[in-house]
């Protein structure tokens, strides 16, 4: 049933979407949108306006980070050195870089930049800008998701258009995702990003209008260094309410609705041939268990919880069956993906036996979650499942500032969250807050875990064995239950073609609208 809803091509795009931009010429990657059932695809018009309704307001301050807030505009304005690809998290699609060569020990990368790249102020982009961007992204106040990796890198200017990166761990497994998530910003106007007064990048669009909290409009730039895109205007309106988004889409005042729950999105598409689903990077939805306090302190209870949760039903009823329930944090496109460890056991009887054995019957498990509809829905099934094995379950839904402050302090207890599936195993282990060693949100921490994680990171491209060992240990300790890995589909009108996704957001090199 998922085939009709989410086109095969877009499934391939899930993970890291592809964009190829080599030597200034653009190679189209397949659109995630064109599979509209009704046919009705008209001719692309040159120019035209694409209107998008996004649930979250733009936050220019966070262009160096991933997030739904800037998903629909940031990559139109800011370009990275290279994008990752969907098929392989270690492969690169070059954008601002013309060449990236890695040393034999995989610890050094020499990056050559394209000639003639200019910021929209007219200034030439040089190696200094790249170095400055990476240093800024690694600084303490930066919101960058990859700063843990950047912190281990030594970045040096080795020519006007050449930068050399030296890492402490092998670069290949992490390079593509890290570069993708670090768009090059203009050092002269970077402070303008704080309040959105100046947003200067190298991309094919410039910001023509920005109203804080309400929306942002991009106009095609007339002196773009590469090939001029087809769309003249991209307008992103902030519409938080799902009823209002659906109304906007139905009434034609917007062509893309983004930020609806999967269920809302599939319901909308099921009822109407002129809409289809389209999605970028997948998200992983884990349940992370506090191993220091409460029932979760007992490994038997944790194992029982892992067996008690009906992930297939969560996938069906919360994610409309579009997700995967392989039970693993790792991306299936990662070369070291442990295929034989994929899958999960759903055995409520064995689980309740384990709970009895641990003497934990009737004990209360409090689950904290960010108060958004998808996580609240997940919670309902989990609570139902855990009650069925003899535990008592309580909810603590929290608003963003509260949840994130608690999580960062490792005070969220047992929590439900969602994280981007942003790259290979080594990349996730260094950046993901549920997995990484320093500054983690999870409480679980043992020397054994640390050793196994470091082994994967150090193994470079031959990490299959280390990953399998780590996975086995994680499953045995059961401190982290990956429930579902699912896309975040947007609903797209059939008049829209050629939008492409990367980790940092949507780009419009090949996008157009038909009449």
């Amino acid at each position, binding site marked *: 049933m998922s085939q009709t809803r989410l086109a095969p091509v877009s499934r391939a795009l899930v993970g890291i979407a592809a964009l190829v931009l080599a030597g200034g010429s653009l190679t189209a990657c397949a659109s995630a949108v064109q599979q509209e059932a009704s046919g009705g695809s008209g001719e692309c018009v040159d120019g035209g306006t694409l209107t998008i309704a996004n649930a979250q307001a733009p936050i220019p301050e966070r262009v160096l980070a991933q997030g739904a807030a800037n998903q629909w505009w940031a990559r139109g304005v800011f370009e990275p050195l290279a994008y990752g690809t969907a098929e392989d998290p270690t492969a690169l699609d070059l954008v601002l870089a013309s060449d990236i060569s890695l040393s034999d020990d995989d610890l050094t990368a020499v990056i050559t930049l394209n000639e003639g790249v200019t910021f929209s102020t007219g200034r030439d982009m040089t190696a200094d800008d790249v170095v400055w961007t990476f240093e800024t992204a690694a600084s303490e*106040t930066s919101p960058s998701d990859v700063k843990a990796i950047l912190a281990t890198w030594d970045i040096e200017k080795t020519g006007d258009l050449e930068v050399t990166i030296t890492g402490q761990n092998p670069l290949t497994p992490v390079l593509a995702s890290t570069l993708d998530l670090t768009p090059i910003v203009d050092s002269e106007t970077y402070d303008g990003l704080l309040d*959105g007064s100046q947003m200067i990048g190298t991309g094919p669009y410039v910001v023509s209008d920005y109203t804080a909290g309400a929306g942002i409009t991009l106009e095609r730039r007339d002196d773009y260094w590469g090939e001029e895109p087809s769309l003249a205007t991209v307008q992103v309106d902030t519409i938080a309410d799902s009823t209002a988004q659906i109304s906007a889409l139905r009434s034609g005042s917007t062509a893309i609705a983004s930020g609806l729950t999967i269920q809302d999105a599939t319901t909308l598409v099921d009822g109407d041939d002129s809409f289809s689903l389209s999605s970028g990077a997948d998200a992983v939805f884990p349940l992370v268990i506090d191993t220091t306090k409460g029932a979760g302190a007992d490994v038997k209870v944790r194992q029982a919880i892992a067996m008690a949760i009906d992930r297939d039903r969560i996938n069906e009823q919360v994610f409309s069956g579009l997700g995967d329930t392989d039970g693993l944090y790792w991306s299936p496109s990662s070369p070291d993906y442990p295929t034989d460890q994929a899958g999960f056991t759903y055995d409520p009887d064995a689980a309740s036996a384990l709970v009895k054995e641990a003497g934990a019957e009737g004990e209360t498990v409090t689950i904290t979650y960010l108060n958004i509809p998808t996580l609240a829905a997940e919670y309902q099934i989990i609570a139902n499942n855990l009650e069925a094995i003899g535990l008592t379950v309580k909810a603590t839904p929290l608003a963003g500032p509260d949840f994130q402050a608690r999580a960062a302090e490792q005070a969220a207890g047992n929590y439900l969250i969602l994280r981007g599936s942003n790259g290979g195993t080594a990349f996730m282990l260094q950046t993901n807050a549920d997995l990484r060693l320093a500054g983690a949100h999870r409480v679980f921490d043992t020397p054994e875990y640390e050793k196994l994680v470091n082994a994967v990171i150090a193994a470079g491209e031959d990490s299959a064995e280390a990953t399998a060992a780590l996975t086995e240990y994680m499953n045995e300790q059961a401190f982290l239950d990956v429930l579902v890995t699912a896309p975040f589909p947007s609903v797209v009108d059939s008049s829209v073609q050629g939008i492409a996704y990367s980790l940092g957001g949507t780009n419009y090199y090949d996008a157009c609208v038909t009449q």
Partner: protein
Amino acid sequence: MIRYLVRKLPSVVLVLLVTSVIAFSLPRLVPGDPAALLAGPDASPQTIAAIRAELGLDQPYVTQYLHWMQGLFTGDLGTSLQYRRPVSELIGDRIGSTLELAVLAGLLLVVAGIGLGVAAGSSNRRWSRFLTEGTNTTMLAMPPFLAGLLLILVFGVALPVLPISGEVSVLSDPVIGIQYLILPAIALALPMAAGIARLVQTQMRSVQQEDFVDLATAKGVPSGRIYRRHVLRNSLGPAVVAIGIRFGDLLAGAVVIEAIFARNGIGQLAVTSAQASDYAVIQVVIVGTVFVAVMAQLLTEITLAALDPRIRLA
């Protein structure tokens, strides 16, 4: 009247001062950290602490309060923590939208409320009374968002003649703008209008039983004149009071209505800021709305005095 206003001034100032303390402390009582939201879902404690310091949130509350007050008196409302933009700009961008909605809804409220109330209060036939009162009671029991949802269903699916999503400023394009405004304004005004109608009706009935009405009837004054000069005039007082109080409710109702009709107004700003712990914005919104409410109340008292010569402003 001037003397009345001058006499009222100290208490108004006191109210606003206390309000500012409440408005300052209430959002800060909410557990959580706006810096954590800015830092992002994967952030480490170090990043959050650094952003806290940058936002000035690590300073003592008293310092923060005094700084805010100092700004208020010099016309600086502060800077949004979330968007890093002046609060005055965020509000300025949205005040027009909310005012348009509130004004049209307010007009509808007065017209529909008093109209329906007078209709119900003066109808003597059984069936017409039943009809007006039935309508009224149902409207009273209908929450604004349900009314809004119903309007969206009817006009979005069955009868697509009016836009159900988005907005165009009435000032920049009156014809189109008003079309965008009609449905949200109706959804906002109708349930409240029912309350006003109820008041007018009750009041009219009790005024009709007053001695002076009997006297006028006995004197042979035409019934239409009795209605206009005596009954109506004496019945509207409480309605005016209620409308004055209800103006604040209009703003509150705007929160939900703006959300479902995709209007970017103050209500939306208030909700998103509250959920993001954007102290700088919420505190200004709270003080601002209390200020408006206080002003509306003063105006109400003045209007009341104009309607009823027995009331003296003193």
